[in-house]
């Protein structure tokens, strides 16, 4: 009986050692945890990145800018997102219904809005939730912004219609994940901040 107990104990110990080795191996290749300093750095970068996105959108909608410049800014904005399938939620002033568009489609839509003039301004940019590590090893956070949308339509007689204006607040998902990246000429694992889906937070009409 005692021998059997010893054998089982040895097997359990061996299995535990193998598992531990596997865990060590996996964490050796990839540093899966951000330090406090690194997290702080990504917080700063997240705010700048969201601010940049707001700037790109402002340029994309501005009728005074050339199509070339608008399209360049569409590309810059797209590069900030995790995937092409990330979406933007769009609210309506007239109905409670919300629409969801893929980000590229949304950017092209606002680029071509049929107004005489359009201005979209983001303000109040802040991190509304801190980065937290998800079960998939990525860090997730949320940034919040409010945007004012102002547009003027030119009537058939050439007269400007009353300015349309509304304010919407939105939440932007933030993801920091480990990816392969170039460090000079070498490839290595590094943490990369990306934007995720954008959802309507609250809406109010001015």
């Amino acid at each position, binding site marked *: 009986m005692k021998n059997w107990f010893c054998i089982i104990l040895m097997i359990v110990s061996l299995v535990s050692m193998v598992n531990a080795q596997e865990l060590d191996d996996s964490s050796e290749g990839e540093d899966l945890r951000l330090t406090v*300093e*690194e997290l*702080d*750095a*990504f917080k*700063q*970068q997240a705010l*700048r*990145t969201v*601010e*940049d996105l707001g*700037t*790109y959108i402002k340029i994309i909608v501005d*009728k*005074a*800018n*050339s*199509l*070339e*410049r608008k*399209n*360049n800014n569409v*590309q*810059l904005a797209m*590069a*900030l*997102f995790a995937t092409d399938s990330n979406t933007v939620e*769009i*609210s*309506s*002033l*007239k109905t409670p*219904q919300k*629409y969801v568009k893929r980000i590229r*489609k949304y950017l*092209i*839509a606002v680029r*071509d*809005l*049929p*107004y*005489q003039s359009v201005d979209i301004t983001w303000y109040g940019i802040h991190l509304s939730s801190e980065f937290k590590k998800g079960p998939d090893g990525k860090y997730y956070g949320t940034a919040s912004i409010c945007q004012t*949308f102002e547009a003027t*339509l*030119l*009537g*058939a007689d050439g007269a400007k*219609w009353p300015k349309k204006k*509304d304010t919407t607040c939105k939440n932007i998902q933030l993801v920091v994940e480990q*990816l392969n*990246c*170039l*460090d*000079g*000429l070498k490839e290595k694992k*590094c*943490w*990369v*901040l*990306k934007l995720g889906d954008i959802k309507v937070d609250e809406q109010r009409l001015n």
Partner: protein
Amino acid sequence: MQSCGDPKMVKVEVEFLLPSDVNLTKDGFVSLIEPHEVTDDKEEFIVVSYPLTIYRMDTERKLKLDYLNNKAVNYEKLAAVKRDFNKYFEASVFDSVFTLGSKNNSDFTSYLTMPNCFLYSEKPESGSEIGEKRIFHDATELRTELATYAQKNKGKIFILYYPYHSPSGSTEEPAESVNEVESVKKPTSTSNKANVSSTSQESANSLEEYFQKLASRDIPYESKTGLKKGILSYFTNDATIVRVNNNKETLAGGNQSISSYAESLCSTHRRVVIVEKQMSDTKISKLKVKEE
């Protein structure tokens, strides 16, 4: 499909489509029933439709709907458009163009999702796509595409004509003469390109100066083309830019090339401080920057 002897011969039927909120006036022009107020909740509709100018042509009447300004154009101009199309398509592979159908009150936006619908505009400034539908700017290329498509698929082909829309909100009139459309075959400088070449270009003598000028609000965007090209000479082809925050490297979006970074500076106007350069021979392979 027509003409068995020549597999490239294609009969193209073009339908010009009108949305549901239009009316025909006595003289055959089009008017909107109501002012075309645009709201966010109609976004899907307006974005696809605008700035499409939609023509409906048949043997009796030639109509135009200008969605924004609600202006009708004269018959002669529309006839010129038709002539131009005919000229291009009849010239080589197509035996017949403009077998015109009529389709009132159509939801033409749905045509943009159909594989047998093609968008054409002779003006490069009109963009490269509406939604996910490519805009053809070159009649020869469109002809080839249509011929290829028609050899593999049967049925009607739709062509939506997409004229240029200027940023100021006025729709440019269609081509008035055959001569104008000749430029499609041999593209001349577009107005945008002309602007770039005629705009005096900035230059710089150091990397720091390049960054400073690229981010400057005082230098017009059109004058920064030279800077965006010039700065590349400092870097290897696959050089990366890394931002430093809190003394830590942070990547946003992923590896960023110098050309993309230079473009972004034209928009963000951030002041750049160079933290570290990694060199490969005489060129920079990695640049760490701090933005302020």
